[in-house]
């Protein structure tokens, strides 16, 4: 599964994009964020407040309870500030 990080989420993780193998227990976006936090202090910091991190599955905004089954690309980012 491909993971993408943007804006300050990317700054904190220090990673823009990566390929990961998820443990079978991780089935939702929220579970994925909890799992990411265990990967080191940078990730723990980036996802310290999961309530302010937004997610998209295959380029579509999703809630944290969205299921990962069938997803190719998950993106994490702060609330958008364009316009």
């Amino acid at each position: 599964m491909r993971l993408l990080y943007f804006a300050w989420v990317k700054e904190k993780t220090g990673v823009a994009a990566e390929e990961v193998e998820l443990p079978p227990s991780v089935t939702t976006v929220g579970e994925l964020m909890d799992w990411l936090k265990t990967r080191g202090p940078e990730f723990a910091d980036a996802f310290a407040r999961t309530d302010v991190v937004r997610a998209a599955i295959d380029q579509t905004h999703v809630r944290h309870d969205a299921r990962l089954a069938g997803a190719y690309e998950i993106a994490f980012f702060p609330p958008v500030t364009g316009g």
Partner: protein
Amino acid sequence: MIRVQEEDFDLGAEVALLKEGRTDIGAIVAFLGTVRDRGGAVEEMTLEHYPAMTEAELARIEAEANARWPLQASLIIHRYGTLKPGDNIVLVATASEHRDAAFAAAEFLIDYLKTGAPFWKRESGPEGHRWVEADARDEGAYARWKTTKDAAE
């Protein structure tokens, strides 16, 4: 029509293109968003975005505006990259027979764009850089369209 680009755009040329050869348009509303320096606090603004998602999201928003209002034409141009105070960021333009539809659709487009399009602004100034925080007013502006739609359903 939507465009995501690093280079600047020309408001006059874009609107001229929108109405070129048409005699059925009575009202065009254009919204132009530009970089503010916030009294010297901002020397540079960098817009990051999520390319694969940006165009899809803007196309979705534009399609929804066209489903809600009778528009003869619509346009969203959003820039990314590094900008200076005074620079153009975004252009939204709508054309309709009457001004009420053109105004409503233009406001809708910019409200939706501000809460859905995957862009992030980073401001740099004498005190370092910071990621712009989402404005609660944008969520409020977005919510009013939800209400309108739900009420109509």
